[in-house]
Every structure is written in C-alpha cells, then in structure tokens.
C-alpha cells in the first residue's frame, strides 16, 4: 500500500479461508483475526466480516456477532458454497444484512450462483441496502452494467477488470458515483496486486474529478452511509 503510486491510504480487509468453512469455528477464527488486525492498524485497515452462508442460522448469528464487534461491512461469496444468490438461504442472510444496515460486498462471476443478474434479484428485493458487485470487470462487465442501470442500489468494484474501457462504459451508462477501485489482493506477489489493479484505472487518463471518485471518494461516501467514517 505504501509503495503504490499513488499511495494507497486505506484498505478494506476480510478473511479468505472461510469462504467455505468446514466448521463454524473456522469462520469465527477468521473473523476474529480481522478484528485484531483492524484494531492494530486502525488508520490503514477497515475490517469486514466474511460470512459463509451455508451455516444457515449460525451464519446469521456470526454476522450479528461481527456487527456488534463494530464491523459494518460483510463479504459473501455464494459461488464457494454453491448457493444461487436468489435461494432462500441467501435471502435469509440478506434480510439480516438489511436489518443491520451493513454493506454487503458480493463476489460476482459467470456462474448461476453469482451471476450479476441473479445477485440483482437480491438487490431488487432489498432496495434500501446498497450492494457492491465485486470483480465487475472479470467477464461480466456488461451484465453488471445492465443490472446497475436498473437498480440504483448496485455498486461495482474494478478488481480483475480485463478491459479497462468497461470502467468508462460503467461511468457513461450507469453513473460515475457507483464504481470504486479494488484490487482483490490475496497474497503478496501472487494473483492480483494493488499496483497492477491501479494501473488498469490510471491507463484511462480519467479527469481529476472522475479519478478522485473512482479511487476514493465513491468508496468514502458509500462507507459513510453504513457508519464508517474515514
């Protein structure tokens, strides 16, 4: 983050292992680690809980526990547990997300579990909850754009964008206020890297105003809406 050009000031962080968890304790341990790390580096990290929805009521209890502990963001990846995002288990989890007023970050891909059109059903059902469709640029850019045009509570992040011009398309066809930089960093020097992901935005030579929005302002306002002051 320090070596980024421009420097990356803050990062939303969440666990990884418990995208699919063999024990409920695994998910709790991952989430506790995020809380510890966020408390250790409060100026740099914004913690998010990671919820494996396949534990049903126990998943909801874990979301409540994390929200009580102060985390206002929740990451969900329906693909990992083979849940279609419009199944009843997903709806139950989103009802709780809606009630708690936290911000869901949802993995998207081309599958029938996490396709933007299926996640869009959740967004449509809970219009007061803003939802971030992650990896909008993976291969389903136009699908996210189609859903976001229709649903004002749908936001997108730029991680894994294959064709950077799709960021411009989102800005033109949807809004310049609902797209945000994200890197999907998992390990140092492996897979996606913060600078590589930044470069995909920088190569567009966005105006100063648009650049500020995509690289920070949009995220800042969105997080402020769920009680995270930066």
């Amino acid at each position: 983050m320090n070596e980024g050009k421009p420097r990356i000031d803050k990062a939303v962080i969440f666990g990884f292992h418990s995208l699919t968890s063999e024990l409920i304790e695994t998910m709790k341990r991952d989430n506790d680690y995020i809380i510890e790390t966020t408390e250790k580096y409060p100026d740099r990290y914004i913690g998010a809980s990671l919820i494996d929805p396949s534990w049903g009521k126990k998943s909801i209890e874990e979301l409540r526990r994390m929200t009580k502990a102060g985390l206002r963001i929740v990451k969900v990846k329906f693909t990992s547990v083979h849940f279609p995002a419009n199944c009843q288990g997903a709806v139950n989890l989103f009802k709780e997300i809606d009630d708690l007023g936290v911000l869901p970050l949802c993995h998207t891909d081309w599958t029938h579990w996490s396709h933007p059109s299926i996640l869009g059903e959740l967004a449509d059902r809970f219009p007061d909850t803003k939802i971030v469709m992650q990896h909008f640029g993976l291969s389903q850019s136009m699908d996210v754009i189609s859903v976001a045009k229709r649903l004002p509570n749908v936001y997108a992040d730029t991680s894994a964008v294959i064709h950077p011009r799709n960021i411009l398309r989102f800005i033109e066809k949807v809004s310049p206020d609902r797209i945000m930089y994200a890197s999907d960093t998992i390990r140092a020097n492996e897979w996606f890297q913060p600078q590589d992901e930044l470069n995909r935005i920088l190569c567009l030579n966005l105006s100063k105003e648009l650049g500020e929005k995509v690289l920070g302002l949009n995220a800042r306002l969105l997080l402020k809406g769920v009680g995270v002051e930066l």
Partner: protein
Amino acid sequence: MRIDVHNHLGYDPANDETRTSDELLEEMRSAGVDKAVIFPFTSNPDIHEGNEIINRALKRGTEKFIAFATINPKLTETPELMYEYKKQGFKGIVTDPRFGVDHGEKTFHDVMECAYILDLPVWLHSDDKETIMVPINPMESMMNKFPQLRFILSSVYYDAVGIASRHRNVYIDTAVFELGQDIAKALQPIGAHRILMGSQTPYGMLKRQTDMIEICGELTEYQKSLIYWRNASKLLNIEEK
C-alpha cells in the same frame, strides 16, 4: 425390486427446507420404489448433524434405507469418523466439490485410501451445473490410483459418461438425464451394468425416474432390471429377496 441411489434427508440451508424420512418413505410407497440410498444435503456443511439424521433414519427403516455418510476431507478426524460410520451401518461415503477440496489434493486421496481399506463405495456427488470448472484430470488420476475402489459419479459432472467409459470402477446415476434416450446413449460407451437409478429427491422425483426408464424403448427388460436394482444390489451387497 427398485432401488434409488440418490436421496437427500435433513436440512438444506440453501432452500431453508427440511426433508424427513417419513416424506421419503411415502414417496417411495407411492412410486413403487423398494429401497433408497440416503445421505445428507451436501449444501449443509454440518456433516456431523447431517450424518446423525441419516443414522436415525437408518435405525427406523433398516429394510428400506441404505445409508451413505457425507465426508468433508478438510476435517482432521475424518478417518476416525469413517470407521465410526461403518460401525453404525453406513454402506458408503459421499464427497462434494463444494467443500473446497480438489480431487487431486492429498487430503482427498487420504479419504479415498481409508474408503478403500474399509471397502466403502464413494459417491462423487455434485449438484454443480458448472462442473466444467472441476478439473477432470485429477479426478481420473484418482480413479486410476484406486482401481479397486468403486465410485458412483454424479451424472451432472461434465462428460460423466466419457469418464465412466474410461474407468471400469465407475458407475453413474440417472439424476440429470433429461430424457429416456439419454440413458440409451450411455449404453454403448459404458453398458447398462454401470448405470444406477438415482432421482436426487427432494429436488427430483422418484416417479419421474421410473417413468423415464420405462419409456426408454432401447432398453431391454433385463437392462431395465440392471438399472432398477441389480447393479445397486451388487455394488452395495444387498441380499436379493
């Protein structure tokens, strides 16, 4: 005699629904199915609770049910669990890619080794319509590594018939065949002797499976009997009565 090898009992967190043994027994009675292989919903990661529900159903309906236990290779106590399940009367184990362990991983092979020692058939289950994302090579390497181990391969897997045609220790179920003719298409590459009736209740229906087998004109009466019960009976050591 009719035996269906693919039935889920217990709690399904994806659909927030519960399927009871009584409901399955009623459907079996109505569809004329004599025995059913039962195992938990693999959408539920709580395998201890899921397998306990199967164990209780087995105790109630020993004559009707054949129990398989769901196994998550990530759990370190898996070998001990498998020995315990065998003692309880479970006849096989079930795995699913959704637990996040690839067929080529050491932990997966460790489970297969234990299944071989215990002589438990392995149900390679999936409800994954995206099985094109499951790499086939590691799966086939595993099948080669354990030639004495018998696998039931979910027909939802991409190229399931092709995989079964290359491995004589692989059976497939009929759960996602759309048409009776799809069964006929599997006859030439693998033969009727490795096809098992599987309806995937409660998602699928027992009656739909029997209708599909009956309507398939290419099947002889003997081949139908193989798919209905003779193959399952041989695979699972069920006494003919």
